[in-house]
């Protein structure tokens, strides 16, 4: 650390390097921290969370009971112990609440005054954060599994919506209407993601085990379909041609630079694709338990030197390195299946929500300040660690001797 600092001061290193090294270190020390709590508002499972990118302060969460909560993540108290309080809540008592499970929530990328949520009650609502009233409601024929707003779009304000219908809907926020459909899938569309690099590029994952990449300016068909065998016919049986997985594909995530695309499927696999060519990079992540029939939300770290993937794996969150596929750690804390996790790029924190209704904050453990040897001994001899919580002490009763 000190070496990095001095190198940066003297200008030997790229300033980014220190940042990367430090954030990598922090990611590696992620832990379930008693200092950070998130209030329990959801009585049921949590399906989706989203952290806004402008301030990195507010987090949206959508629950299986239709409730949407906005949390304040920023700790202004100055103490280590902090509980994330809900700022606003669309509770069950609200008139506009989703009737069924909320599947996806997303902030409007440029302003926290607006967010979009979609639900199994076949609607997608655009909310005004101030009044917590829907400014616009889109209705569909089937359950809405997923929607996404392009994080970088300047020239359009399209929301891609994946529903039970195999056709992907494109809704325009400007006109408030469904302006377009993209046809090509044969089963329900479980996940849609805009590329963070090119504003017209859209990736969609469907239950027909295919992943298609579209250019929305060219509506006649997809650009290409990801093929797990990279077009080698010999390995694929006839019906497995152009499939990304051998089961439903329910998770989709671009890396932060948009060069790679990650997909997860119910065949318990995770695959990394080159998003420009659609080539399978054949990184082996091993078995990633995945039995969700709905969308799985996972995320990729940002600003670390090897990038990390955080992916729900049963009741824990698995952390892999992106390009080598090495399993770093399993974050165990949930008591039921984890459905979503979101990485906070500014503080290298991870938030995860699961079916047990817990929203857990995984916070880097701050390294204890090193104390010189002799003083440590003195201290221990004198007070016997007075700061330690009594619950952490051993209590061997004397009758055992």
């Amino acid at each position, binding site marked *: 650390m000190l070496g990095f600092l001095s190198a940066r001061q003297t200008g030997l290193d790229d300033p980014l390097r220190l940042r990367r090294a430090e954030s990598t270190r922090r990611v590696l020390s992620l832990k379930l921290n008693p200092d950070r709590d998130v209030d*329990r508002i959801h009585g049921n499972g949590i399906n989706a969370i989203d952290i806004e990118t402008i301030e990195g302060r507010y987090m949206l969460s959508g629950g299986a009971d239709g409730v949407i909560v906005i949390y304040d993540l920023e700790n202004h108290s100055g103490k280590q112990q902090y509980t994330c309080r809900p700022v606003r809540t669309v509770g069950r008592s609200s008139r506009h609440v989703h009737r069924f499970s909320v599947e996806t929530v997303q902030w409007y990328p440029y302003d926290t005054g607006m967010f979009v949520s979609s639900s199994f009650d076949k609607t997608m609502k655009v909310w005004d954060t101030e009044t917590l009233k829907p400014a616009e409601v889109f209705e569909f024929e089937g359950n809405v599994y997923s929607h996404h707003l392009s994080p970088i779009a300047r020239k359009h304000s399209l929301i891609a919506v994946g529903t039970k219908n195999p056709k992907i809907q494109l809704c325009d926020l400007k006109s408030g209407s469904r302006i377009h459909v993209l046809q090509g899938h044969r089963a329900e569309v479980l996940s849609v993601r805009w590329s963070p690099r090119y504003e017209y590029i859209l990736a969609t994952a469907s239950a027909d085990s295919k992943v298609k990449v579209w250019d929305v300016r060219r509506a006649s068909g997809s650009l290409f379909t990801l093929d797990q065998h990279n077009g080698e016919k010999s390995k694929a049986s006839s019906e497995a041609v152009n499939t990304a997985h051998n089961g439903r594909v329910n998770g989709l995530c671009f890396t932060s630079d948009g060069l790679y695309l990650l997909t997860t499927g119910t065949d318990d696999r995770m695959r990394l694709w080159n998003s420009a060519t659609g080539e399978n990079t054949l990184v082996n992540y091993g078995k990633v338990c995945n039995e969700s029939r709905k969308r799985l939300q996972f995320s990729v770290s940002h600003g670390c030197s090897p990038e990390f993937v955080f992916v729900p794996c049963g009741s824990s969150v698995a952390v892999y390195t992106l390009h080598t596929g090495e399993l770093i750690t399993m974050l*165990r*804390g949930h008591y039921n299946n984890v459905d979503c996790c979101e990485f906070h790029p500014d503080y290298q924190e991870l938030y995860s929500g699961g079916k*047990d*209704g817990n929203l857990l904050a995984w916070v880097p453990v701050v390294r204890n300040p090193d104390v010189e040897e002799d003083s440590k001994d003195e201290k221990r001899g004198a007070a016997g660690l007075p700061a330690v919580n009594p619950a952490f002490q*051993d209590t*061997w*009763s004397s009758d*055992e001797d």
Partner: protein
Amino acid sequence: MELPQRERLSQLVEELTTSGQQQLHQEKMKELKKLCRLSTDCIDHVYHSVMTQLSQEHAEIRLSAFQITSELFSRSHHFRTLLVDNFQEFLELTVETDSEQPLPPPKEVARKLRALAIQTVQSWQTSYGSAYKKLDLGYHFLKRVKKVDFQDAEARTVAERRREEERQRKMERIYRARVEAAAKDMEESYGDMEAALTEMESCMKLLFPEFSLFLPDSSGQSEEEQPCCSRNQNPIFPPSSSFLTGRRPQRKGNQSVGVGGLLSLAAVCQHAELHHTALLHICLTQLFFLLPQMKATSDGEEDEDDEEEFEEVPEKEGYEPHIPEHLRAEYGLDPSPSTSAAALSQQKAPPRRPPAPPAPSSSSSSSSSSRRMKRMMEEEQDPTSAAATLRLLREKLPLQGEPSGSDGPGQSGPEQQAAEVPVVPFGLDLYYWGQEQPNAGKIIKSASQHQFWVPAEVEEEVESQELLAQSRSRYISFPGKFVPVSHFCRAPLGNGALCQRQDRLKCPFHGPIVPRDSEGRPCREEDRQREEQRRKEQQPDWRDEELMRDIEAATGEDLGSSRNRRGKKKKKKFPNLSDLKQSSNTARSRLQRKVFNKSTMRRVADVLSKADRRKHDKFSNQFNYALN
């Protein structure tokens, strides 16, 4: 940590968990804690072994392992961190949070484990919840998601409670349906039951007094118990004691029909001592027939019924099994003992009430007697009538005592001797007895079987000595008489009993049958030796029980001398734990294992299909078999 310590810890954990007790062994637990206190490595080791035991598929092991866990949890911080890190799995194994991993049997222990685990988690939460975040999370998970009510004594989840209620409701519904069905059934068959009851009652009314009349012990009251004949009819039903002693008041006139029948019946009944149910039945049938007659007669001659109607008859010893011919008519019987067999095959007709007898007359005229004879004949044709039953009875019962006159005078001494002489069936030899047969033993032998062409030399007749002898001699085979075997094998069996086989000469298991004493040992010395020899041959000498026992006593090692007798019984690994397979080891399951054995099923299927195929092969040219 040294190896012996580690081993000791593993051993302690295993002993504690496989004890099968509800409480932990205090001494061992103390030792375990003492060892754990030494270092965190020990705790690591204990933690892992306890978790292994917790995942065993036996609730008693889990319960004990859980008790160890809770003991250590309150002691060691290190143990707490280890356990809390893996708290999901811990809850799955003890509180049954995952419905796909139910707690293992036995059920009561599992329920206890669950309740205990929930209580313990709550107490942990209150004391350590603030410090261990995952413990807190787990507690809230139980509370909010699994909806465990920590106050509930049963510590059940909402789902379980609902299931329980559902089950109760269902059972109630079933019970109610059953009650309704039973009530409906009852209603439906009420009429039938009533009818049956009345039938029964009237039947008993009819039966009971007559029944008691013939019981020797109730003879005294029989008179009083008779509702169907009035008191002034005493002479008709004299006390049975007079029956038995033989003092028989005889009645003249046609009433004697009933009385005589009754008397003979009484005699017969006494003879058979009323043992036979069939006999009883016959008696009752007879009575049925007689009673109305009695009534009728009593009605007819109530006024003139008096003592002078009876005349004293000489006393008799015992009874009269056979009524003399001249008295037969008086007794209401067919004069000759032989009847046509057609009477037996006749359909059972409703008992025909005889018409009221004609006016009493002191002297029986020939015409009236002949008429009565005819009626008797008719009666005997009827199987329900007294005469017919009596005849049957007589045929059935072996005749005892001296042959009476009814047997006829032809049965004298020489005839009896003739009956003992063996009778030879009639044969050819008897036919030609004492004659010389001209062509006996000659047979015509044709050399050629051809019909038209005959060879030149004709030498047709051949004398056969064999045939000749046959026609003159007679074989009488004398196989002797069959005598049933009365002796037993009586060789000692393994269970201490004696062999009960009854073979004539040789028991298939114990060899020739020899005389034996009460314990089954042969009486003769050479037999005893032979038996000893045989036993030794069956068993190699080193397995001789006594020798082995001697060796065992000398060396102190178990060579399995006792195994010899009892068969090999596998020792259970943990004898204290309740056996989970016990319940599944029922007669039904064992049979099921045999019957539904895969190879058995295959064999049966093979046989069946083979039979089927054979049918196909045989009849395949017929269209209806060829089609399927």
